[in-house]
């Protein structure tokens, strides 16, 4: 799961790094991605594999659209004031969750275990698919890396991250960069969700755990440092399984959250922040 976690966390880290916005609704982008994937695979009359591929394209696009809308309609008007944006994204979280509950949760089978749908991928075995997920996540991550370091758009984004005013003075449309970054962050979360949804099920509350985990990953890795985020995602994703072998999952979560709080208190630049 480390791979998927890294994908989600990189989205969050990107948004924080470039925009200085803590996106509390990030987990909901992930959830919406999974839900959209379910809709696409359920309604499109394709064979499962093709439908899933379609979902992998459609879901991130849909979420990116929502994110870009949220950015231009709400976040931009707040001038990206950190505290106001957190409140606003909390509001967004509730709205997205409720929307998913209304349109997805109150579906045709609301009473008898409403979230039992599984998207089957018969041509792969269970573990074979997991391997594929790791591979796909790695490819997407490399793509993001190349995008950030090798393309003009990536350069513009990094320039905006370093100094917003100077970037603006050089004729960069900062508003559009921000909308694009927010959309990209959302799309990464959605892509992670589409990858994971055949293994886990789509559920309107599924955004909670990845949000917390990606918070942890981003903080441990140093806020805004993408390299640190990747390392932390791998470490945490792998150690999560190890820890929960020794302790109960709830206790593991308690320890993890407290550790993260302590890291923020005593090492606010993150464990890898200095390297970024």
């Amino acid at each position, binding site marked *: 799961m480390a791979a998927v976690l890294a994908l989600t966390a990189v989205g969050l880290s990107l948004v924080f790094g470039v925009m200085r916005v803590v996106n509390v609704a990030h987990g909901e982008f992930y959830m919406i991605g999974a839900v959209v994937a379910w809709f696409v695979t359920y309604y499109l009359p394709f064979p499962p594999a093709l439908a899933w591929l379609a979902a992998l394209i459609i879901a991130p696009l849909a979420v990116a659209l929502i994110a870009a809308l949220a950015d231009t309609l709400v976040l931009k008007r*707040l001038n990206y004031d950190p505290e106001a944006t*957190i409140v606003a994204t*909390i*509001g967004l979280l509730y709205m997205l969750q*409720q929307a998913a509950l209304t349109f997805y949760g109150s579906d045709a089978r609301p009473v008898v275990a409403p979230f039992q749908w599984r998207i089957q991928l018969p041509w792969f075995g269970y573990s074979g698919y997991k391997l594929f997920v790791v591979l796909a996540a790695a490819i997407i991550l490399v793509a993001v890396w190349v995008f950030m370091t090798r393309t003009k758009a990536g350069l513009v984004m990094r320039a905006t991250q370093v100094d917003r005013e100077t970037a603006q003075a050089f004729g960069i449309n900062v508003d559009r960069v921000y909308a694009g970054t927010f959309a990209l962050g959302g799309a990464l979360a959605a892509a992670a969700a589409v990858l994971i949804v055949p293994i886990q099920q789509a559920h309107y509350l599924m955004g909670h755990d990845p949000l917390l985990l990606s*918070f942890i990953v981003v*903080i441990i890795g140093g806020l805004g440092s993408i390299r640190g985020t990747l390392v932390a995602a791998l470490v945490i994703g792998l150690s999560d399984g190890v820890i929960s072998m020794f302790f109960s999952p*709830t206790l593991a979560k308690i320890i993890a959250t*407290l550790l993260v709080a302590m890291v923020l208190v005593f090492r*606010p630049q993150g464990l890898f922040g200095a390297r970024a």
Partner: protein
Amino acid sequence: MTQGAKIWGLHLLILVVVFAAQFVLPSYHMTNLARIMVLAVFAMGYNIAFGYTGLLSLGHALFFAAGFYAMGLPIWHLGWLPLPALIAGLMVGGLLAGAVGLLALRTAGVSFMIVTLMFAQAGYLTLLYLNTWTGGDEGFVVARTARVLGGLDLATDTPRFMAAFALFACAMLVCLWLVRSPLGRVMVAMRENEERSRMLGYDPFRIKLIALIVSGVYAGAAGAAYGMLFGYVGATFATIQYSILPMLYVLLGGAGTVLGPFLGALLMFYLIDITSGYTDAYLFVVGAALVGLVLFAPKGILGTLRERIAPWLP
């Protein structure tokens, strides 16, 4: 009329109106109003930290729930009487706030929000983990016999309303006194410009810690009273949602105003109550209200009113 008299007069008038409401309102709304008053106390505590001192915490559910459990657990396991249990709730709320504050106040701004959020989440998970003691997700019912305070059965309408009102009135008057006291002024100075107040010789850490502890005491008292008056203690009250709610109330009513939390709680409670008659999508209403507020009225109702008409409003 001096300004001080005007301010005290207005707040006492509000208290009288709320008190008189019980003679007019039907039973359903009376229970609602009791609930709103307790929630308003919670929001007032939040307002002391957020509205006056500028500490945007996302972890107040922790202190609220601490009040709940510090009141409920001794009654359940040890057979405590209601009064010491209530006091325990209030004290534990303050103590926990102090402990969290000692650590969390080393950070500021966004980090402070995340740290408090993490602590609250850890607290919630701890409640679930210790479910043999706390009842976990399902919670437990506070025994009816333990809800009799000074001969008054708090499970019936009128005494419940009176108890909630007493707490509300105390909380409001203390809050009013606090924000008009020198300490309250320094708290506002912290919010407005921490560096400058440090240069004037105030210790920001100490002032913020005091504000957070007072805030925690309010939250603990509200939690203990809520559990006592409505007879149920459960881990749902420790979820993030109960950190968001007081923030919503305060933002709606007006951050940094004494009456704002009550007004916000009143309006929001009935907004949810009325909309849930038409649709079950009440989370959407909460979310939309949050977004709308930060977008269009970041100062809330009373904050805007103070700006336009009544600059003397505390």
